[in-house]
């Protein structure tokens, strides 16, 4: 292949010089490898054994219990009840995060600020400062994990279900706001400018032009958020929101493996069905973005215009989904009964004042600088190991999980494939997808408590727990990328007689890798954020410090640690933006 390439270059009229091997891209790759090696050293590589052979007996017992889940009628009734609770929390959380996100999205969009403050001062656009300020507020809100939000709301609102709903709504609303603002900014602006030039005020003009234009992409994203909310609702069970997470933790505390498996199965079913529904709907909406979370990936070709909207109004899946959603929302509010009166009650304000008094001012002198750096290093090392492991495994699992890959008519299947090939294709797809489903359904703290049996304590079990969870989500997102690939160059390659391996290496891989990278970076930020919930397995880091401070009711300490944590996430955000910029240049 090398030969043909060089042959082709010499034949072409303009000779393209071969790019140097030492460019910024390879620089980042080398830096990443160095980072992973550093993280492994932090985790104690070469210093002690990682795997605890004594733990396998426990694992065997745990897995054996999987064949024999607790199916007694009482426990099944409990499981059904808590499954609906988790679903209801997710629905209510998503509902508010979308309202918050859509409003915040408008006020975090560049286009809105540009219209409000069109002037320039000293060669710089006037709007930039307030625009960036709004975006930083959103970034701050989403950098804090749902569990921490949950504990915060319990301390001012109390045990009301509203606390858990808000714990999902605030960080997810902030993410949605960011993504929605980026979708708005990417939309063609002509209709908007027409209205603006005829004197319509910015917010109104936006509502009538860019917002409807962005509706489909936003709807698609909303359903992705719902998937995430289900997982968040499960984790929130730990702090008293009830639901599946709560029951899993109870059973885990007394090591009732049979019960854990029943609850796991419910969790798999809930996650699996939600993901299927959301996946199907988003495929129907055809939005290429399937854009996810903290940093919306470059949008390929956002659909726009009312024509497409018209088209999708008659799609059965879309219509059915909207109706189901419209029924689920009132049902969920009725089921969990959050008390909105508490939001602005006198008692809440009183407690808010108390907590604020205890938390301010942050006190960084509690720990010496070296200690802060050490804890941050542990946290970063854990997240790096998690994302490196998850990324590699996700790469392996994402292709067989994509339905356009090994199934009949798939990119790597010869058109003459027989029954055997077809069965094999389906089997591989199902296995790969099940692995990913299991990996993302089980909350990271539960993974951590399982890994601690087979891995010696330290950074590694924490990283493994985060890695499993990340693998599940990343693998699914990457499989969607493969399914959404522009198949024209690939079928062309196939028609020219290229073999499977060649199609993969020269077609699929280069086409999908930019988005893989974008998703990987996004999940890295998420992994850092989630180190909070695995801090207890002897892994240390900022997550452990935070847990200790929370159980000591050291509000000032919690506030201080959160500031350090958010700063760390901002730094990671900057690095990942720089990496993306480099790889976008050609």
């Amino acid at each position, binding site marked *: 292949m090398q030969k043909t390439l060089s042959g082709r270059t010499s034949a072409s009229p303009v000779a393209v010089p071969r790019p140097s091997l030492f460019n910024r891209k390879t620089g980042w790759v080398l830096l990443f490898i160095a980072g992973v090696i550093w993280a492994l050293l932090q985790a104690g590589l070469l210093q002690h054994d990682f795997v605890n*052979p*004594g*733990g396998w007996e*426990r694992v065997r017992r745990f897995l054996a219990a999987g064949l024999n889940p607790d199916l007694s009628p009482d426990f099944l009734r*409990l499981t059904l009840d808590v499954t609906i609770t988790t679903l209801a929390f997710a629905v209510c959380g998503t509902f508010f995060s979308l309202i918050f996100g859509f409003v915040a999205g408008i006020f975090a969009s560049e286009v809105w600020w540009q219209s409000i403050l069109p002037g320039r001062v000293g060669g710089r656009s006037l709007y930039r400062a307030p625009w960036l300020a709004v975006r930083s507020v959103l970034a701050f809100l989403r950098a804090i994990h749902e569990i921490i939000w949950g*504990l915060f709301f*319990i*301390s*001012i*609102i*109390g*045990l*009301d279900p509203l606390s858990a709903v808000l714990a999902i709504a605030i960080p997810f609303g902030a993410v949605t706001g960011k993504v929605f603002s980026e979708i708005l900014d990417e939309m063609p602006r002509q209709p908007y400018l027409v209205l603006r030039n005829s004197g319509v005020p910015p917010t109104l003009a936006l509502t009538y032009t860019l917002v409807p234009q962005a509706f489909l992409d936003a709807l698609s994203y909303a359903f992705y958020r719902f998937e995430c909310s289900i997982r968040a609702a499960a984790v929130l*069970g*730990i*702090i*008293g929101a*009830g639901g599946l997470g*709560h*029951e899993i*933790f*109870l*059973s*885990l*505390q*007394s*090591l*009732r493996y049979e*019960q854990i498996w029943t609850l796991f199965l419910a969790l798999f079913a809930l996650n699996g069905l939600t993901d299927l529904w959301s996946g199907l709907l988003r495929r129907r909406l055809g939005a290429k973005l399937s854009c996810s979370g903290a940093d919306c990936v470059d949008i390929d070709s956002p659909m726009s215009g009312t024509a497409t909207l018209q088209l999708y*109004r008659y799609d059965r899946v879309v*219509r059915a989904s*909207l*109706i189901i959603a*419209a*029924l689920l*929302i*009132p049902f969920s*509010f*009725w089921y969990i*009964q*959050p008390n909105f*009166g508490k939001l602005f009650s006198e*008692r809440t304000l009183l407690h808010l004042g108390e907590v604020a008094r205890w938390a301010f001012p942050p006190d960084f002198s509690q720990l010496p600088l070296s200690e802060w750096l050490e804890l941050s290093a542990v946290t970063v090392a854990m997240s790096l190991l998690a994302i490196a492991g998850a990324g590699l495994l996700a790469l392996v699992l994402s292709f067989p999980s994509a339905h356009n890959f090994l199934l009949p008519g798939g990119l790597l299947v010869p058109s003459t494939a027989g029954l055997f090939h077809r069965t094999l294709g389906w089997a591989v797809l199902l296995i790969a997808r099940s692995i990913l489903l299991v990996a993302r359904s089980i909350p990271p703290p539960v993974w951590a*408590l399982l890994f*601690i*049996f*087979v*891995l*010696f*304590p*330290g950074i590694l079990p924490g990283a493994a727990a985060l890695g499993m969870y990340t693998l599940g989500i990343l693998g699914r997102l990457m499989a969607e990328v493969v399914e959404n690939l522009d198949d024209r160059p690939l079928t062309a390659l196939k028609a020219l007689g290229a073999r499977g391996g060649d199609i993969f290496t020269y077609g699929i891989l280069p086409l999908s890798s930019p988005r893989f990278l974008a998703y990987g970076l996004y999940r890295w930020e998420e992994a850092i954020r989630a180190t909070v919930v695995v801090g*207890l*397995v*002897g892994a240390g880091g900022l997550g*452990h410090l935070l*847990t*200790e401070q929370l*159980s*000591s*009711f050291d509000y000032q300490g919690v506030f201080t640690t959160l500031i350090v944590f958010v700063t760390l996430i901002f730094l990671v955000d900057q690095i990942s933006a720089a990496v993306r910029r480099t790889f976008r240049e050609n």
Partner: protein
Amino acid sequence: MFKKLILMSLLLGSLLLAACGDAAPAAEGAAAEPASTEPLVISAIPDQDPEVLQRQFGQLASYLSEQLGVPVEYKPVTDYAASVTAFRVGDLDMVWFGGLTGVQARLQVPEAQALVQRDIDENFHSVFIATKASGIEPFEDIDGLAQLKGHTFTFGSDSSTSGRLMPQYFLSQAGVTLDDFKGEPGFSGSHDATIALVESGSYEAGALNESVWDNRVAAGEVDLDQVQILWRTPPYHDYHWVARPDLAERYGDDFPDKITQAFLSLDPNNPDQKEILDLFGAEKFIATSNDNYAQIEAVGREIGKIN
């Protein structure tokens, strides 16, 4: 357009329903019952088999309701910090706290009262355990804890009295700091998990609640070829029921005494009441007071769990 209208009305309807959802129960409560019988909200995080109590709390709630003459509602919570916080903001009226969490709760709610504890709680112990493979030998004197230096070690839940606070206190008495262990000490999350983690060798040693250890050994659930008990700590006060000060205001001055009486009169010969005692792993309940927890508070301050 028509469909849009339907969708919009469904959405609006959902909002209205949501709004009604919280208004309705409050209205009912006000109409049906006088204000004095708003329910007594209780919660508990027991030291063993928490899932049994959390899922069968109906028995305790109905017993108390019968004895006290007010409706009793049980709210399950799994997280110690969350239950202390809920007690502070007034969402939980009376909670079965551990020694440390009880003190933390009382410090955040001045005038809150420790009412009753189990017979075993005035004389509670932790046990230190280790794998046989670690080479750590059982000992009689607190100084033996120095053997743990250089080994891996796990506590239970981070705010557990018997699984964390007192073990850490006795360790420091023997001159062992958390930095003396190999790696960072772990927090297994529960007493059962501590046994399992030490048994499997993930950690070489650990500390937990004596009664969980004794129960698991008696039930034959611990592999004594793998793990052995090193030492039982001196006694201290642990679990107890703590009540908010406003209960007297709400239900009458004698209400705290009525609660105490209700627990003291739990009769092991009555099958229903025996079941409640069993849920708590108690023979009987005895009265207690805030003063009994002065040592726990001092240790909590020393270790930094109380600020």
